[in-house]
């Protein structure tokens, strides 16, 4: 199922005009976020519901407004503990704990909240549109 989501997010980000590298970054962030939800909120049960919504938004950036993709993932699993959502030092070479690091590296905004009995993860990635060079 994760494979289907990855393909869909890849197509969506490409259509929105993200660069190839940013498309891969958003796909990676969503995949890692879903993996974390399945592993930690649903304790490995892959058939539990996760709601995903995607919005093109104007978000504040550097004192101005920027074109961005907002992704909201919601689950009804175990309450995530924000204190434990800190990743780990990369110098400590061992398996595990990389998912959150990947999400933070790939997205511009990563916010977690708990509302009405649901965990909510909000991810934002700004569209970096290249300005045409003079004389081009």
């Amino acid at each position, binding site marked *: 199922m994760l494979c289907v989501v990855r393909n869909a997010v890849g197509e969506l980000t490409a259509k929105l005009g993200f660069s190839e590298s940013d498309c891969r970054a958003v796909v990676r962030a969503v*995949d890692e976020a879903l993996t974390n939800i399945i592993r930690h909120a649903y304790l490995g049960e892959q058939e539990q519901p996760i709601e995903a919504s995607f919005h093109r938004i104007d978000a504040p950036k550097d004192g101005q407004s920027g074109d961005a993709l907002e992704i909201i993932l919601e689950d009804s699993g175990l309450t995530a503990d924000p204190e434990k959502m800190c990743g780990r030092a990369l110098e400590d070479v061992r398996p595990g704990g990389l998912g959150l690091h990947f999400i933070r590296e790939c997205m511009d905004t990563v916010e977690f909240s708990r509302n009405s009995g649901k965990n909510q993860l909000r991810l934002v990635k700004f569209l970096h549109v290249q300005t045409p060079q003079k004389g081009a």
Partner: protein
Amino acid sequence: MQIAARHLDKTTIFDISGDIDLATSPQLRKALLHELRELKMPRVVLNLGAVRYIDSSGVASLVEGLKASRDVGSRLILFGLNKTVREVLQLSKLVRIFEIYENEAQSVAP
């Protein structure tokens, strides 16, 4: 994900294709640990040229294989890294920790 094993003298070469993710990384981990811990192969080489995607659980399996190889005095070698795989190893700052070559000839050289 699919894994095919080839044996060459004291080397095992795994040709891996497809996606290495939450569902498939246990299969990779099992294959690596079997070859390293149980068969004690002196050199295990992973051909990642046909890997389309690898997530953090796949990276964790590679790290576990690397640790097992160090424990038993073997070598774990990666080659054929495409942009996606290389990006993930760079993100996790593991590029310098693994023994990585461009192609199979370099990976199996004495």
